[in-house]
């Protein structure tokens, strides 16, 4: 890896992906992860530091057909306060409300949260249960190339994603929830927000006549990546949310996760919490 030699602040998407071509670039968005990581030497800045703040194509939150598009540079505060998000995606608002502090919400972007790929990333859990996809841009030849990828396949490890070094995340797309859609997010901690999740849970689905379909369950901070919980979803799918089902599903959730011990909690406690909170959330959903 080379030394930092160049600072670049493109003003268009084309300039940005062009710059990314050689792959020896560190992308800077809000800087809330990158600044402390680079200052502490945990991340080394590559040949070029590219500040994407001035690229208009990465901003804004819009309704495009049946999808809500959130630009990569949208800050957590912007998302939380945006009428479209508040109306259609309250679960995302909930997660944003439990995100860091006001100062960090004002600076941190959703693109940064996704690319930082922390297993405890707070927007990632609601985005997973909302079936979001990541929008990527690159310039393999001389032309801008864009494609999307389901978020559920995007993460591969702590800080690691399927995005190539030459790609830029331009935003996320979230299908508009249909009638009867319910979604909940819970972040466990002693503080309302400024706290890395010990565990977090997202649950979503369509509730009709007490029966949950299209069940989506995602867990944060219990695996190397934020993950969907396939067995738990399966156990929930098409079920009526009575007490027995809820208990059964919560037990499956506990067995499905494979957390680790760290300074914040032991694996045992995390599993217990997955069980108890899953149960709590499902009871809430049942009452919705």
């Amino acid at each position, binding site marked *: 890896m080379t030394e930092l030699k160049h600072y670049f602040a493109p003003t268009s998407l084309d300039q940005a992906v062009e710059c990314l071509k050689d792959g020896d670039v560190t992308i800077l968005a809000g800087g809330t992860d990158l600044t402390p990581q680079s200052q502490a030497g945990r991340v080394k800045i590559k040949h070029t530091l590219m500040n994407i703040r001035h690229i208009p194509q990465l901003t804004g939150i819009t309704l495009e057909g049946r999808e809500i598009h959130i630009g990569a540079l949208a800050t957590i505060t912007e998302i939380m306060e945006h009428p479209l998000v508040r109306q259609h995606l309250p679960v995302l608002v909930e997660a944003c409300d439990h995100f860091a502090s006001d100062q960090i919400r004002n600076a941190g972007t959703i693109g940064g949260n996704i690319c930082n790929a922390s297993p405890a990333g707070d927007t990632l859990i609601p985005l997973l249960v909302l079936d979001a996809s990541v929008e990527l841009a690159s310039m393999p030849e001389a032309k801008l190339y864009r494609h999307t990828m389901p978020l559920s396949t995007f993460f591969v490890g702590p800080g690691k994603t399927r995005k190539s070094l030459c790609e830029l995340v331009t935003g996320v797309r979230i299908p508009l929830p249909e009638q009867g859609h319910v979604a909940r997010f819970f972040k*466990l901690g*002693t*503080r*309302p927000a*400024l*706290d*890395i999740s*010990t565990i977090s849970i997202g649950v979503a689905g369509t509730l009709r006549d007490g029966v949950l379909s299209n069940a989506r369950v995602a867990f944060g901070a219990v695996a190397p990546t934020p993950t969907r919980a396939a067995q738990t979803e399966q156990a929930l799918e098409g079920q009526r949310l009575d007490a027995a089902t809820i208990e059964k599903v919560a037990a499956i959730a506990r067995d499905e996760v494979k957390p680790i011990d760290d*300074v*914040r*909690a*032991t694996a045992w*406690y995390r599993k*217990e*919490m997955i069980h*108890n*909170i899953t149960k*709590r959330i499902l009871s809430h959903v049942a009452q919705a």
Partner: protein
Amino acid sequence: MNVAEKKARVIEPDSLIGKRIPKMDAPEKASGRTRYIHDINLSGQLYGKILRSARIHALIKSIDVSAARALPGVHVVITAADIPDQRPIGVAKDHFPLKVGRVRSQRDEIAAVAAESEEIAEAALKLIKVEYEDLPVISNPEDAIKPGAALIHPEPHGADGSHLHLKQGMSIAHKGKPDNIAMRFDYVHGDVVQGEAESDVVVEDTFKLHYVTHCCMGVSGMIAEFDASGNVLMYSNTQVPFLHKREFAEYLNIDPARIRIIQPPIGGGFGSKLDIYPFEVICLYLARAAKRPVKMLFTREEEFLASPTRQPVLLTLRSGCKKDGTLTFRQVHTLHDNGAYTSWGATTPFVMMQTFSSLYRVPHCDYHTAAVYTNNPYAGSFRGYGNLQATFAIEQHMDMLAEKIGMDPLEFRLKNAQDAGEVTGQGMSFKSCGFKDCITTAAKRSDYARKARENAANRDKPGNIKRGIGMASMLHVGGGAKIYPSDGCGTILKMDDFANVTLITGASEIGQGSETVLSQLVCEELGLPISAVTVVNNDTAITPWDVGVHASRTTFIAGNSAIGAAKKAKSKILAVAAKKYGTAEDELDLRGGFVIQAASGEVVVELSKLLRNLHFQDKAELVMTTFYYEPPSVHQDKGFKGDVSAAYAWGSQVVEVEVDTDTGIVRMTKVTGAHDVGRVLNRLGIEGQIEGGVVMGQGYALTEDLLIQNGVMKNPNFRDYKLVTAPEIPEMDIAFIESMDGEGPQGAKGVGEAPSICIAAATANAIANATGVRMFELPFTPEKVYRALHGQTPKLYWKPWKAE
């Protein structure tokens, strides 16, 4: 001026005491203008950095600094080898600023650099190569006292392995220690065997108190400069400038008169600046070698790694009472994890034993502490000084004993609480004592009795949120503490031609608002508005001697000293006025900036005018006075008995919690406190002290936990070392009991340390009230509480260890 008009003017009596007076330095601070050490830069200044050990316990085989010295911009690189005349530092003189031959903990200082910039200094540290030979790590004090345990400070051996015969009287740093016991304290009054025989019930439990640290928002730092003649100027946040001046001189092998300490405003103290730390001496070495000013500032991570902690304690308490609720005895054994070196943490038993011997009437008390060396961080002094730990155990036992004999816990406490005039088994004499008032006030305002009953009854009802209420009380020195030969403080007071006062006091300001209180006390004597006072308190070249900011002593001792100086000024002024206006001194008084007739309040003369007259006459005179106050306390005898403080402060706190049994999360919803403060001097200031202390206590009880595993600190950052944040604070209802201490300034006693002391104990009682589960180990983090609620916490028991 018309004489008749002047005569008509009457000044009404007024007092500043008990008012809400904003801190004098607050406007500067609120506009970001205050210059802390971090903000001061001297021209030609270099930046100092320290290389700390990469190992926990190891021999240093070699240090190679050649690459660091060669780096452009590096002025000086030093290791122990470069300072052959290093003197041992610390409370037990058991280490050198730069470690010699061996490292014993993660924070150990190996080398230091002074360079043109912080970046260069850091780059230079990375170029220093150290070879280590690892030694076994002792990270548990119980292991450290096992027979045959490896020694943390072994006696040095000659190259051939032979014993070196070292001179008597040499320090531990030189001659080592044949065991790992840093300090021992053994105290007794009465006869616990008899006490136990008289008891109807006895309880015994082991309590475990964790590591926490001060977390001053301003990180540690200092600037050192030597002038051309070798005099030293230090910008330092020490809380003990005069005693430290002497020590620094010893470490530099110079005359103390050549050291001047300037104390810029401090970003928090809480007891952390009571000892001399290696970095301060190293900064001096660097400045001496570089012949340039050297500034050294910690990073936050370094602040965690290299600051003292609160004393972690393992203790087994056995206590008993009679059926009628009379306490019979307390027997206490504690094991203090001293860490690798000895700082003030080792001496917390001075305070702990006071609490065990004298918080409530205890006929028989037997107390033993062993502070033992390990390879862990070392503990220092921290607001409350051992009292949080002692109170945590005692007040849980108060609840448990009451429950065993079927007595109401409130009644049980009141039955054993002391009154004014009592002298305890340890010889503490309570001249003023609001203990019972504190208990009843706190209980009443919080509706303790009703809530405790209802919570216990609701315990088994459905729902995951359980409410609890718990109470604890405390006793702490409130009139200084005679631990040095003198516990005094000097004041110089001068008045100018405009009746403004410059108050020069030995008492440092550490953010606690002492300047404002001292000004108030002076104004009260001299009848002046607070704006007339300027306080000078930060330069040893100017200020008179003081023993330092500790033991909640500043208001009491410096306050009495300031009053003494003001009284002298007043009598001088009144004497002059009496002579000039042909009346008796005792018919005059000072009020509102005037000399007045004491009886009527009628103005005699404007004070400033009188002072000018005095100054510009033939026999010109200025009003300048000095005073030195030494409290009437006494030293303890060999058995730790004696009336060490001129007054004692009391307090009771009731904590209310909500325990989420699904998660183990404990929310502190309300704290009701009643504090015997003697008298409220500045309501705003004292409320702030109490609230800040309550929240610090909340952190100790619920969130803060410095994790040390095998000598390694796991969470040296605010991400995982959790201070309480604004949304978590409880509702606070604070009442003041004014017991009007006879010796205190205007009747006041010191309270700086009081408010944190009871919180953890009261929280433990509240959790027990909510859930029926007793917790003996701090802090009450969600996982710990959850485990306890699910029977996953094995009963803690430490068998008292008795050294021969």
